């Protein structure tokens, strides 16, 4: 055994002590933050101007209505379909016998009301050709692995979601749901620009298909860690008419400024107190640079939804955010899905169950891969590193 559990226990105890102090501090901050939200202006135009004029180092949510707004649970349609996709993958193994990856996309389609039925399935895709394994741009050639493979999986999830949701929408009201954030978190903000452009173009094309067919889409984030609205409250605390951290605040002073009080708080903590079960918050435009600059009609907006057991962040493209009917549909269906799923959307749970690749299946995949190579008389070998891990000789 290499892990020194005694040392870990000591550190875990320190962590728990620290957490207790942080919780208490955060409780006091939370009270102040709620007071700040209470005092926020009703006029969001004025707020947007102030946000637009500010220069802060932290991203600020832009409210489309007053940040104080609380929207009650809208009525849910009698009959509707909810579609979700999720994915998992087996990464290419540089030390393995053949360079390839496997992406498994799970789809759950559940119809309620007059035509109650469900369809759960999964679709595996093996990537082994040159065009699957590498993204090329001029002389650049990048192996699709790690976050690039995550991105490719995101794209496949979105494609399948759009295909299925558009098909279901022919029979009636349909909502498409994704897990996690709507943006391509796997590639946005880092990595090669040509890869980001390529992936983004594909994602936006699927969102555009959904928009053209009038099928609302959303993504669901359980226990969100974002602080975009907290940052808005920080801006409201700024004593300067036009915030400009670099110019107006000395680096040494920043921690003692009023805006620093709310650092460490999360949007979810505030809305957990602000909203009642079933209510949703105002809709905000995500301050993420890539979304604002590159997503066009699909700029990412979000709201918080109190589903009963927690407050979750729901992201929608701007064209959904600006359509009250769509927004009400997202709100009512997601709330109902959480009720049916014991706190988490049932449809996402089922899509995940269909997508997951278990440890045993991963091993089985390796065995099948090796068997195929042997049956074709193809010699194969693993790397010396892989071999040393298997042998672990004394």
């Amino acid at each position: 055994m290499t892990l020194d559990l005694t040392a870990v226990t000591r550190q875990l105890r320190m962590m728990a002590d620290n957490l207790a102090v942080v919780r208490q501090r955060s409780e006091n901050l939370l009270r102040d933050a709620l007071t700040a939200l209470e005092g926020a202006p009703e006029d969001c135009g004025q707020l947007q101007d102030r946000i637009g004029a500010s220069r802060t180092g932290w991203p600020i949510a832009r409210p489309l209505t007053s940040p104080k707004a609380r929207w009650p649970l809208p009525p849910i349609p009698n009959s509707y379909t909810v579609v979700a996709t999720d994915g998992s993958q087996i990464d290419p193994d540089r030390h393995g016998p053949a360079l390839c990856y496997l992406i498994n996309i799970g789809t759950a389609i559940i119809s309620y009301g007059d035509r109650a039925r469900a369809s759960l399935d999964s679709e595996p895709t093996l990537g082994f050709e040159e065009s699957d394994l590498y993204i090329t741009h001029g002389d650049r050639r990048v192996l699709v692995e790690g976050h690039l493979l995550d991105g490719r999986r995101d794209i496949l999830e979105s494609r399948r979601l759009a295909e299925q949701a558009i098909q279901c929408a022919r029979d009636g009201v349909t909502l498409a749901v994704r897990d996690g954030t709507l943006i391509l978190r796997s590639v946005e903000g880092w990595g090669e620009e040509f890869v980001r452009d390529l992936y983004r173009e594909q994602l936006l094309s699927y969102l555009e298909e959904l928009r053209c067919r009038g099928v609302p889409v959303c993504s669901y984030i359980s226990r969100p860690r974002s602080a975009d609205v907290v940052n808005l409250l920080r801006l409201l605390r700024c004593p300067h008419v036009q915030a400009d951290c670099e110019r107006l605040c000395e680096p040494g002073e920043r921690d003692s400024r009023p805006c620093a009080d709310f650092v460490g708080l999360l949007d979810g903590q505030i809305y957990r107190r602000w909203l009642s079960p079933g209510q949703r918050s105002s809709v905000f435009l995500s301050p993420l640079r890539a979304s604002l600059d590159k997503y066009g009609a699909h700029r990412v907006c979000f709201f918080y939804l109190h589903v009963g057991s927690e407050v979750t962040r729901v992201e929608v493209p701007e064209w959904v955010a600006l359509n009250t009917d769509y927004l009400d549909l997202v709100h009512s269906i997601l709330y109902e899905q959480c009720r049916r799923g014991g706190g988490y959307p049932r449809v996402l749970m089922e899509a995940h169950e269909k997508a997951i690749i278990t440890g045993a299946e991963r091993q089985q995949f390796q065995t099948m891969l090796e068997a195929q190579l042997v049956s074709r008389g193809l010699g194969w070998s693993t790397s010396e590193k892989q071999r040393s891990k298997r042998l672990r000789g004394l």
Partner: protein
Amino acid sequence: MERDAVTSMRIAEIIEASTTEFVAQCYDLDQVPDFGSFVRVRDRTLDIYAVVSEVRTASIDPGRRPMARGQDVDDEDQLYRDNPEIRELLRTELTATVVGFRRGDEINHYLPPRPPRIHGFVHMCTGDEVRTFTTRLDFLQTLLASPARVALDELLAAAIRNAWQARGGEREFLVKAGKEVALLLTNDVNRLNGVLRRIGR
């Protein structure tokens, strides 16, 4: 289930097979054959006959057990309508004990030369088929010697009751079957009485 349809109903597909019994996955959670009813599988030149010896419904994924969901719902059908995905997550399987086979016009009350194929289609026997197959009762001995996991006496009695029903409740058949069971269990009066009580009307 309806036994007297002119054409037999396809209800399941074999997922495990041996000489003496097979396991089949039912196509529909609600179309489940009765315990002790007669089913047939076509295997190339043979029609293999079997008696349903066990039916069970469980989660497809052994790691995911069904959870109670209906506390606020008035009736069970409503619960299924409200949660349409449940049907996709459950699987009903039947085990059938092989009791004979038909090759051309010849019906044999002993085990077939080979088990049915995996993915073989399982049909409910029509009333006619049950009547033809149960003209003789040698299959009761095959049934009694089978390795079925359920209580064999229960299975024997249920098969006789099903055959008797397919024969329109003929008293003669019941008497004949009773005699056959008496011969088979001649050394065990307690078991014999148990079976006779289960088929007695």
